[in-house]
């Protein structure tokens, strides 16, 4: 099989994930897009590992090992990510990313007026 096929598919999936990260408003949808990007990388890793194990007779199987690690880390990431999203949602009443603009220029006290409370909650965490 041509290596170009999985590589191109991986690239496409990755860019789809990029689009999702950049364009989605809901934080959980952004997390889903991140999963897509991770999987695109995984596909790449697997494809190149298979190719190298045959052509270069590489027995380390680093690609697949890294894929497994990535999957595990992705699971951890999704857990933590969701916990953060939930914390933000509890504090702000929203999980929309473009409403979290505390770093904006000229930002004095959160747009909803509850930024100090949120910061206090985060500081106590």
């Amino acid at each position, binding site marked *: 099989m041509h290596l170009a096929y999985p590589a191109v598919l991986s690239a496409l999936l990755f860019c789809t994930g*990029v689009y999702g*990260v*950049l*364009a989605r408003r809901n934080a959980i949808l952004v997390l889903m897009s991140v999963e897509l990007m991770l999987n695109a990388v995984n596909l790449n890793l697997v494809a190149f590992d298979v190719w190298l194990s045959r052509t270069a007779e590489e027995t380390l199987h680093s690609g697949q090992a890294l894929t497994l690690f990535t999957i595990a880390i992705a699971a951890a990431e999704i857990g933590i990510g969701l916990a953060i999203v939930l914390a933000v949602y509890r504090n702000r009443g929203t999980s929309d*990313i*473009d409403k*979290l*603009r*505390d*770093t*904006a*220029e*000229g*930002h004095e006290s959160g747009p909803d007026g509850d930024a100090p409370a949120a910061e206090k909650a985060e500081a106590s965490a």
Partner: protein
Amino acid sequence: MTTTTLAVLVPLLPFLGAVAGLLLGRTVPGFVRPLAVLPTLTAFVLAVLVAARQGGDAAVDAATELTPTGSVPVDLALHIDGFAALVAVLVGLVASCVQIYSTGYLRDDPRYPSYAALVSLFTSAMLLVVYSGDLIVLLIGWEVMGICSYFLVGHYWETPEARAASLKAFLVTKLGDVPFLIGLFALATDAGSFRVTRVLDTVAHGGLDHPTVVALLLLAGVAGKSAQFPLHTWLPDAMAGPTPVSALIHAATMVAAGVYFIARLLPVFEASAAAMVVMAVMAAVTMTGSGLAALAQDDIKRVLAYSTIGQLGYMTGALAVGDRGAAVFHLLSHGAFKALLFLAAGVVIHAAGTNSLAAMSRMSGLRDRVPDAYWTMTVALLALAAIPPFSGFFSKESVLGAAEHVTAGHTGHVPAATGWIVLVAGLVTAFLTAAYAARLWLLAFRGHGAQAPDHGRQPLTMTVVLWVLAVPSLALGGLAYRALPDWFDGDDLAPTLTTSVLGTGIALIGGLVTYAAWRHLTGLAARVPLGAVAAHPEGDAGQVEAEAIATHAPAYGDVASAPDPADPGRLLLGPLHRHAAVGFHLDAVYTALFVRPVLAGASLVRFLDREVVETYVRGAGVLPRWFGAAVRRAQTGNVQTYVSALLAGTVVLAVAAVLVATGA
């Protein structure tokens, strides 16, 4: 101790006294007076010792090079010949007298510590100028004197007159110092050294390439320091300073420095006939003009100030005819009697509570209040008017004799014309000098009217020094004119018969004419009441004087003159009086020539800065501000926008990297 060590100590002691006085003035007030008087007194004694050891023999020369200074070396050098030794004695004497006098004069002045320290520094600088054998070291003393005179003239800085006068003194002398500096450099470049001895050697061997230029440049600096026409205008205004400072500046230090400098480098000036003629004309204009102006002044100190200018004109005249012995002789005797005149004038002002001659002429019994000042001032005025046998007679006759000598064409390197100029101007000035001296004496001590106020006896410190200074005023000339040629160049300083008879006769005529005019007007004085006295007659002399100066302009309409119809000077001068009172409008000319253009230029620069440059500056700020506003707008706080920009940049960079890697 060797003579060199002694000579080094002479300027060093007052300097250390000044430093110590400045440091300890606030913390240990009890030390201020000893620190002011003792170093100066010691320096005087040492200067006498140095003079005794030098004894008019070959000059003492010592030099040490502190550090290499490039192509033209600068040495710490001493060059003590007869001139230096004797002038240093005079400086030490006058400075000691002034310091002692000041302890009484500024008894209650809160700024006395800094004042005394500055006087010490001033003295030290002058002694440095006198002893220095290197022109750069001399220049240092020269400039230190300039700044000290600025501070001392502005001692009563609360009054606008004092502020203006100090600034004027500083600026006008600096105006001369700029060409002076250039002249020094030109001289040193021609001679290859700043050492006085080396310069004189070069001149003696005709090694000077541009004698006229150098001499004229140096002459400008001398005119500024020694208050010669046309840079003399600061001196009358400098009367706004305390009287002891006036005495110091006028008698021994600042103004004497210029004359002394020419005397030291006279061969340089003699190398250029043009410079000598210019000097003679300058001296002539200075002495006659100042004599006329002195006759019209109302402030007793301004009369003395103009007389100083005139006497300096004599010295410059003597130098213009190539006789530096006569010039320094007159410098010495003038230093003694002019210091006496000023110090006595300070006593008189304190006693009378006013500095106005018009007001004094309406007081009777002033001479009984201050007998010391009366008698010593009489002696000094006779010396000033060159009446034999007072010291001024001998020194002035030596000047006139030298001029007469030149008119006969006996000397090769000085044009006879300079001799005639100096001689005629000197005789005219002798008349004027006698006239204003007589006027001053008559108005101050022969007044009619109310009794002079009684403030008790003057402090002993102020009266004793008057008698100390009266001795040389009385006797220096007669005793010294035979001995001095040994110290100087050897030229005869004895008065010649022609000039003596002529000069003394003219002086007597001047005095008598003034007396006649005064007699004629005495009745008038009683009819026109005029006078203003200080508000605090019980204060120390410095305070009385400051108040007198401050009230003169409000009371009489002008700092210089008073509308007194009984003034004999007014009768003698006739229509000239109005012009003479304001120094022949020279200040107005300066205002028109320099001050107004400078002010106009300043306002132009101000306009350019405010309206043009500022606009550009503000314009330069607008673009970054807009840019900053744009960048501000980019900071939306939306993380997705940031990441978009980040990734876009990454893509661009990656593509660029690929293109570069593939060589596209």
